[in-house]
């Protein structure tokens, strides 16, 4: 059983990503079968249906002191993913996933002084955590600067918790259906991270063992058709820099590349088959 934490800044799409995974069982797919095991996973699958598919955004995950007070209040999703590629042997991964509040990640730069918040970071660096899926969604101006500072802090903490040699980090550019990113999805390390987040990328490469670091591009919303790369997305406001968007056409919902980072995080080798 692989314990995995999904981390990243607020609005990166972490909760939506997990909702799509949990909802996937209802979506027909010849290669993957995902079974949601926990109650939380079933609940969020319902929300995928009533919220995401109805043109609204999920609620941000916040340490509000009411629903979420401590690490243990974070929803816990357990998935069993069966992979049966055409003419190949079936494969399976079992995952226990925690969905982190982005605010923790945002706070890393200035330093986390709140005991409660500190606990969240400690938990994700504990020995029984196999890996972290780090979702990043910003690629414009300031993002590289901000992410590199945060990841600098994160790598320091990995060292401090004795995890620098044995924690896998899958770094994924989320929402990659965006026109500026979509063409780079096939070689994200070179065509997305090197281009848009060069400092962050080289900092990660320097601080984390090569075998423990992989780059991905994912999009929970995806594009309209295989040969119609218009994003299946509508932005909530015209505001620049706002990170809220909705799924435009639920009937055409085909997430892109959701499973391969999880596969690598849990197996340590890359998944060969398409998504």
């Amino acid at each position, binding site marked *: 059983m692989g314990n995995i934490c999904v981390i990243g800044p607020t609005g990166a799409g972490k909760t939506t990503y997990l909702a799509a995974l949990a909802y996937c069982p209802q979506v027909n797919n010849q290669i993957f079968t995902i079974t949601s095991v926990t109650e939380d996973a079933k609940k969020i699958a319902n929300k995928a249906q009533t*919220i995401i598919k109805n043109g609204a955004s999920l609620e941000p995950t916040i340490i509000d002191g009411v629903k979420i007070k401590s690490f243990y209040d974070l929803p816990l999703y357990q998935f069993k993913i069966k992979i049966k590629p055409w003419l190949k042997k079936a494969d399976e991964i079992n995952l226990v996933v925690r969905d982190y509040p982005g605010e923790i990640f945002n706070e890393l730069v200035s330093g986390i002084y709140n005991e409660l918040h500190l606990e969240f970071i400690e938990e994700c660096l504990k020995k029984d955590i196999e890996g972290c899926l780090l979702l990043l969604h910003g690629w414009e101006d300031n993002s590289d600067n901000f992410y590199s500072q945060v990841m600098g802090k994160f790598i320091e903490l990995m060292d401090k918790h004795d995890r620098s040699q044995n924690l896998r980090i899958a770094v994924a550019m989320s929402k990659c259906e965006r026109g500026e990113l979509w063409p780079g999805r096939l070689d994200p390390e070179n065509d997305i991270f090197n281009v848009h987040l060069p400092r962050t990328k080289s900092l990660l490469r320097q601080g984390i063992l090569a075998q423990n670091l992989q780059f991905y591009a994912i999009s929970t919303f995806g594009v309209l058709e295989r040969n119609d790369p218009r994003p299946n997305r509508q932005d909530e*406001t015209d505001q620049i820099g706002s990170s809220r968007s909705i799924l435009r056409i639920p009937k055409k919902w085909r997430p892109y590349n959701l499973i391969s980072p999880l596969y690598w995080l849990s197996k340590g080798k890359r998944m060969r088959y398409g998504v």
Partner: protein
Amino acid sequence: MGVVYIGDRSVGKTHLAFELANPQGQYVKVCNLNYDNLKPIFLQPDGTARATSTIDNRTLDVQVQLSTGRSQVSVEWIDPPGEIFRVPWQLEHPSEWNSFLETVRQSEGILLVLPPYREILKPDVNPETYITQEQWSNRFDRWTKFFSYDCPKARHILICLNMADLFSDHLDKEAQTLAFNPYGTQLNWLQRHIYVRDRYFFFVQSHLEEINRIRGVSGLSVRCFITSIYNRTLLELPWIYLASYLGN
């Protein structure tokens, strides 16, 4: 879990919430209130609502039919008198006001109920009791500040332009356009919001953007609705929206 109705005097806060309990519901039912028994408490003999005199709290057990089945939401319905949103009242009652603000901050949903402005009223409605669009817009400035500074972290903000029966010539048609159907393909929530915003809230669009901007990533975008106690479809919409988040 709390849901607070806010808004000035006589805009329809109490009646709008109470009418939900009418057993003629479509997708929304209030299970723990008996409409007929409570009528004399909330309504006057002529069917209009009684003015609220204290901050009333009641539990509402609401059942909403969603595409995933029935969703059960149990909330504290908080119904203040509109009086408390007048600055003089707030200055005279600082501790009550602050404790009310605390309640607002801790609640899951805030429904701002607004009256129609004079310019959109149907010709047969006496315009005198309604404020002009300009006055309305100025008042909305203050609501913008309220959301931005007094409760920037509120999870759900729903803005309801109430008494749609007084301003919409084709209320049924408008309701049909906006209607929710758990199984069909109607407008989605964003499209509903944009439809209502562009028709009825266009002159305060920058205010709406300002609220969203200040809320940033810690809350969802505000949503605009039109409502009326005389139209069940419109009356239910804000609650269907809330239930998809708050329900179990």
